[in-house]
């Protein structure tokens, strides 16, 4: 009993009870306002200190970070440039493959002819003449007079050949003449080129009713071109009272200004009828 009444023991007991009481109160949340009140200035101070520390750290590290960022930026820009180049190259390939696909589709639709694909590599220097140069020549089996087409229609014929290249006279050339038949009007006529590259319909009989939009196909007459290749569509017709024939302007099927790839019909033999002419 004496031991229990010992002042030292009592002091320790009271302190323990107070500590346990404080712990119970803290756990129960009764001391939260007191803690908050006491921590507020500490948090403010800590925040101020942390901000200053971060600012100092950023300031001390910024040259290194900037250099790294610049390097990364340069690398990324380089990567973007490479990817852009790849995109452009792929778009080019896609465009080329689409053209070739269209050409092969055309070849499949017209299986009676043998075709050789060629790329247009140049255009005639004389603006009064409509010729293009392709990258295939006699080494590839090309010969003078072979017809040249695209998936859209007739382009022209081979005018001159060397070993690795050939020159094509377009149907829009002033010296070009194509015998055609009008698909709906069931009559034959002639398509002439001009020095400006426009093509016109000639020798249409006056009694034939030709509608705008009429499709022109090669007739095969004269033996220069094989029959049934698209040439163009009638844009306008002109009929004069004192003239024997009607004339008209024609929209060619092929856009000669953007011609990039063609098909040469390699198994068509041009017929030379000049000796038969009077």
């Amino acid at each position, binding site marked *: 009993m004496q031991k229990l009444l010992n002042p030292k023991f009592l002091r320790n007991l009271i302190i323990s009870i107070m500590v346990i009481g404080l712990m119970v109160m803290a756990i129960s949340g009764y001391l939260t306002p007191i803690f908050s009140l006491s921590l507020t200035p500490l948090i403010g101070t800590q925040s101020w200190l942390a901000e200053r520390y971060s600012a100092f750290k950023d300031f001390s590290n910024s040259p290194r970070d900037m250099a790294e960022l610049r390097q990364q930026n340069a690398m990324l820009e380089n990567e973007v440039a490479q990817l852009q180049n790849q995109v452009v190259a792929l778009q080019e390939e896609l465009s080329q493959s689409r053209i070739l696909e269209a050409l092969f589709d055309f070849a499949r639709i017209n299986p009676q002819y043998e075709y050789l694909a060629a790329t247009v590599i*140049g*255009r005639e*220097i004389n*603006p009064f003449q409509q*010729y293009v*140069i392709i990258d295939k020549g006699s080494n590839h089996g090309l010969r003078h007079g072979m017809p040249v087409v695209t998936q859209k229609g007739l382009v022209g014929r081979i005018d001159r050949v060397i070993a690795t290249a050939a020159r094509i*006279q377009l149907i829009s050339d002033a010296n070009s003449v194509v015998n055609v038949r009008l698909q709906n009007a069931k009559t034959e006529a002639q398509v002439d080129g001009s*020095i400006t*590259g426009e093509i016109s319909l000639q020798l249409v009989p006056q009694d034939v009713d030709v509608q705008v939009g009429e499709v022109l196909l090669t007739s095969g007459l004269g033996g220069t071109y094989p029959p049934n290749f698209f040439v163009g569509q009638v844009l306008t017709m002109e009929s004069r009272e004192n003239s024997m024939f009607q004339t008209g302007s024609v929209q060619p099927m092929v856009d000669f200004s953007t011609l990039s790839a063609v098909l040469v019909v390699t198994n068509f033999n041009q017929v030379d009828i000049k000796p038969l002419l009077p």
Partner: protein
Amino acid sequence: MLPYLVSSVGFIIAFMLQYGVVSRSTMLSGAADLLLLFIAAWSLHEHNKRMWVLILIFAAFISFVSATPFFVSIFVYLGIFLLSKYLNTWVWQTPLLAMFLLTFVGTLFQHIVYLAVLWVNQTPFDWATAFSNVTLPTILLNMLLAIPVHALVHEMARSVYPTGLEP
């Protein structure tokens, strides 16, 4: 030797650009003639008095590829060379003016020759259409390209010939 080498390289570059790019870039039916401009600009340089030999070779080369008769290109480009020598005698102090004048007159001369050949060959054409749709746009394009071509050729000439000997 160096001037001939440089002019040959310049001609080949102009030839490739002409057939691959310039001839495809048309205004109406006209297209610039880079070879004419190169020959004009190079001929205006007074050191190139024996340039006619090279022009003869170049023109023969063009004739081989072109659909125009063989002699036409030779005649046209040699004519432009002679015209440049004539212009050098009285407008040599203002080379750019001489270049413009030579481009204008040279293009007209070239087209008159081309049309004359077509007329001789009985190719049907209308003179007015030829002038308005082909010749006028060609002159305009040639005049536009004359400035950069002249500047480039002038710089080439400066690198080939020693300083102080230029016109």
